[in-house]
């Protein structure tokens, strides 16, 4: 017994904290690298549809989003169906082509992710697809969530 007591009395109970900033910095760098900062503020309502056979988009930096859904108005009201690219609402479908063509020039391997409200009529999506074909952005992804 006496031997144990002596040992515990001798050892220093404090843990050295000098390595703590290193650990924190390591975590920090990890999160800095994985963060995608720019998320747009949605001006249209989008409820995702669900599907079973979905694939993951690994390279998030290639993705460009097009949001389609009823416009959010004040006081929880929803307006007519609109298209949103980046932070602005596109009134005319014809403008999609030029916008996406510019993006294609910047990123030749662009993937267009369509985030469409589940109750939208499909006609507007076809219009967008026609524009995308004309713009030459042919890789498409219908954003859906995993079916439970």
């Amino acid at each position: 017994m006496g031997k144990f007591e002596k040992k515990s009395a001798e050892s220093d109970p404090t843990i050295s904290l000098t390595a703590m900033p290193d650990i924190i910095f390591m975590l920090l760098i990890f999160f800095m690298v994985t963060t995608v900062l720019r998320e747009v503020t949605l001006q249209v309502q989008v409820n995702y549809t669900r599907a079973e056979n979905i694939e993951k988009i690994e390279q998030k930096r290639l993705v460009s989003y097009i949001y389609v859904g009823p416009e959010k108005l004040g006081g929880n009201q929803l307006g007519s169906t609109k298209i949103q690219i980046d932070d602005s609402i596109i009134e005319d479908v014809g403008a999609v082509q030029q916008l996406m063509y510019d993006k294609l020039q910047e990123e030749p391997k662009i993937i267009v992710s369509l985030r469409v409200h589940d109750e939208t009529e499909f006609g507007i999506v076809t219009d967008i697809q026609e524009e995308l074909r004309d713009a030459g952005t042919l890789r498409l992804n219908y954003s859906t969530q995993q079916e439970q």
Partner: protein
Amino acid sequence: MFDNKRDREDPEIGGAGMADIAFLLLIFFLLVTTIDVDTGIGLQLPPAPEENQEPPPIKERNLLNILVNSQGMVLMDEEPTPVNQVKQKVKEFVTNRGKNPELSDSPDKAIVSIKTDRETPYNVYIDMLDEVMGAYAELRNQGAQSEFGVSYEQLEEGSEQQQAIKDMYPKKISIAEPNQ
């Protein structure tokens, strides 16, 4: 006198605050990080048609027409079909290999053509597309199992084996312009 002053100066910067600064940054990045990955149904659009170009001739038997109307009802080759049976029918159509004269010659010639109305709800279209994708996923899985003894997901991305399976069951999905 100068020498004396230099001796008294402490040249070190306190390192204790470093952890706090790092924590602050860490918390900021923790909050703004979105870990969830994007998921969705991938599709490759056909290139824009050249002007006055005739569409290539396709044999009627190699074409599976899927029509989705504004009520969300599905018609496959003139036959009303519930959405949950689309997968089975697509598989039958693709793997026919010339047996039934109504269905496709071979998997690499089979084309699934999807046509909708402008008023078709988006979620019905996605459900239907999901079924078609599911049919191809199962076929590719079967192909990978019989050829290489592993599932399709286990094949390395971009490898020759994966390409072989892709060539075996190419996803040829065409989206027709909707009726006005």
